[in-house]
């Protein structure tokens, strides 16, 4: 009988610790999810008074803006710029 009690206690203890760990240490969101912002359209007024509609991505606070060396898609009349994750995501366990 004591074997059953010990096994039940061990299994339930493990499950309880798993639950506590999962509760207290929520998994970190993937990098791509963190970096994605909210797309929006704003009006930009140029020097000569001309107004343009510009597609922008509003990043969450604390994230660095990504820059590209190429011409803006809006300025050239093309499609909206795409947000590309420039850094590889390091997958590690968070404690």
């Amino acid at each position: 009988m004591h074997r059953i009690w010990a096994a039940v206690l061990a299994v339930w203890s493990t499950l309880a610790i798993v639950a506590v760990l999962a509760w207290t240490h929520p998994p970190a969101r993937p990098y791509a999810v963190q970096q994605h912002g909210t797309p929006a359209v704003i009006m930009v007024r140029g020097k000569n008074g001309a107004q343009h509609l510009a597609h922008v991505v509003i990043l969450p606070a604390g994230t660095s803006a990504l820059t590209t060396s190429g011409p803006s898609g809006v300025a050239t009349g093309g499609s909206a710029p795409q947000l590309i994750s420039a850094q590889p995501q390091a997958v590690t366990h968070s404690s």
Partner: protein
Amino acid sequence: MTAVAASVPIAWLVARAAGLVALGLLTLSTWLGLSMSTKLLGTRRMKSLLAWHRTLVWTGLSMIVLHVLALLADPTIHFGLAAVTLPFAAPWHPGAVAAGVIGGWLMLIVALSFRARKWIGQRGWRRLHYLSFAVFGLGLGHALFVGTDLRGLGGPIVAALALGPTLWLVFLRILAPPAPRRSRLAGAT
């Protein structure tokens, strides 16, 4: 729901929890063994206490197996079979992981020695049983040095909780006068 389940590193959490439970069971088993050795809990229920002692050891070993299987199943840390069964084969903290590997194998030897008692004799079994102290030390060291959950303040607290009563019982075992054997008593009377 599937995305949430995929984002939770369940194997990693099970590995950590099983390791902690195994350490707890090993500590309880050590305390119980020393309490029996010092006759702190009396001599009446010795058979029942011995059964509990053996059960705690085997349950602890089962939790170590679960700990190892969960580490093997974890997709992030890439621990192979050699890393979890051979000392110093792990690429990550090889010394501290080896302490856990060696401790696990020694614990298996100590657990099996209960069954081999009639072949190795009482003296051989007792000598082999001294390995329990090595198992306890290696297990605690492994948990403290590579255990994710025992970093910071948790480590010293758990170490003090596990080591304090163990050291006290060891000193009691060493300093307390040995109980007279029945045969001596019978011969004296």
